[in-house]
């Protein structure tokens, strides 16, 4: 879809494409101390797309996704310049509270990180900190979120049990449910299946296919088959630069850059 818009380069279509961007990154640079980790990144991420970010270790893909919800702020000595617009608002601007950004943009981490609380409390937490006290709304949202993360049937009889009693794959789906409770616009996933077994991985991938109906998903993955299976668009990062960003089919079948070709065909990385 977006491809035809870009290819035809008709002005009104380009404007329309711009309208549909959830994230627009313009000339983003990022340094860890003296290390230049992201170099001049330009990426427009379309809504309701699954956008995969691939690349070898240390290419900056995790750094980039953590910059999108400013979790990167937690790393001491990080400097950035350039612009990231989320729905046309500069995420680095003082007027855009980082808490608001992170409420609208959920994140799922590499390793499942449920809170040491019950399954129910894990999901209710987000609602409670944002001031929702109505028990009925919380109960309904907990169920809806667990259903949304394809976990409800497995845990409905024990939602007041500790979340740490769940398997790794279930914990990761719980973390997804925890995001869904806040009805986010975008879900960032930082290698969400890298700590999971193949069966759990498959479940998460199926879940991502369902979630893309309602959410924009940006997923960092080490696993190229995964990117090929689940994403609409793929960005290939190398040494802190975006080498190529295109429809996933194009990236995997006829990459424009020889480095992309080398990486996806397993010659390095």
């Amino acid at each position, binding site marked *: 879809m977006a491809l035809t818009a870009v290819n035809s380069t008709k002005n009104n279509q380009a404007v329309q494409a711009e309208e549909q961007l959830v994230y627009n990154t313009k000339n983003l640079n990022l340094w860890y101390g003296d290390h230049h980790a992201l170099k001049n990144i330009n990426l427009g991420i379309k809504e309701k797309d699954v956008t995969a970010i691939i690349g070898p270790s240390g290419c900056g893909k995790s750094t980039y996704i953590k910059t999108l919800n400013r*979790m990167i702020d*937690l790393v001491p000595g990080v400097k950035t310049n350039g612009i990231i617009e989320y729905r046309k608002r500069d995420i680095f601007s003082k007027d855009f509270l980082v808490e608001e950004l*992170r409420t609208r943009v*959920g994140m799922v*981490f590499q390793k499942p990180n449920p809170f*040491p609380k019950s399954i129910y409390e894990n999901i209710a937490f987000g609602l409670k900190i944002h001031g929702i006290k109505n028990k009925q709304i919380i109960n309904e949202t907990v169920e809806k979120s667990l259903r949304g993360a394809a976990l409800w049937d497995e845990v409905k009889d024990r939602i007041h049990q500790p979340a740490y009693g769940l398997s790794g794959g279930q914990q990761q789906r719980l973390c997804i449910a925890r*995001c869904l409770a806040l009805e986010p616009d975008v879900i960032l996933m930082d290698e969400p299946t890298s700590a999971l077994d193949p069966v759990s991985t498959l479940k998460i991938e199926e879940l991502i296919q369902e979630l893309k109906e309602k959410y924009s998903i940006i997923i960092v993955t080490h696993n190229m088959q995964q990117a090929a299976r689940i994403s609409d668009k793929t960005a290939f990062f190398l040494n802190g630069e975006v080498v190529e960003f295109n429809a996933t089919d194009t990236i995997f079948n006829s990459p424009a850059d020889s480095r992309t070709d080398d990486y996806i065909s397993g010659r390095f990385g």
Partner: protein
Amino acid sequence: MKTTNKELSPVQQLLEKKYNGGFLNRSEKIIPVVLFIMAAVSVLTTLGIVLTLIFETITFFRDVSIVEFFTSTDWYPFSNTDPSYGIWPLILGTLKITLIASLFAVPIGLAVALYLSEYAGARTRKIMKPILEVLAGVPTIVYGFFALTFVTPLLREIFPSLELFNAISPGIVVGIMIIPTIVSLSEDALSSVPESVRQGALALGSTKWETASKVIFPAALSGILASIVLGVSRAIGETMIVSIAAGSTPSASLDLTTSLQTMTSYIVQVTTGDAGFGTTIYYSIYSVGFTLFVFTLAMNLLAQFISKRFREEY
């Protein structure tokens, strides 16, 4: 010896020597024996202390009725005509000091622990933690005269009705003394909550304080409670500060502004006085010591129970 065509390199020669000498074998066998003896000595010492306490306490109860000991509110062991041994005033004295110390130390200790683990930068931590350790290393006798010669006069400026010996000043200073215990154990508990949990909360849009108070603090609760109980246990057993600044008047009154005596300071009074060996007064310190021991033992068991019961596995 092997033939010359299989000459040993220097490393091989050394290894040969090591394994043929048999030294390694012998030392490896002796080490666990030595370590076991050390362990046995400390266990036996503890047992010895407890048994001494129990036997001497039993001797004491030959002279004094156990009912009087636990129910009477009069503690007049030095009375020549009608000595009375009701331990309640000493327990009350200990509890007054412990209560004031806890009210003072728990909020401050937890605030400092939260600050150090969740807010302070690496540099602040580097400066503050050693300072707190110095606080933990101050001899209690120094705390004692700090209470008597600094805190008490200061409080009496503000509250002129306060007596020279009272519960408040030594209570506060005992509190200062246990702050490092609470801070250091609570801070360990808070810091051992994995970074990933912290990130999970922040990524949902919670503020730093919401993360600290609603996720990290509850997650570390077992360690925090254990630190409080251990701090309280130290306050119960504290001797020097109360001997110097709280007075030596067993009192069954709830008044915090008047002189009192704790279980520990009674033992100090008797052991530094001239109570003769074998007298009832002499045996009374064992009964008080045993009561004190039951208190601190109960606190330590409570701390263990709490940290097991509420432990979070990450």
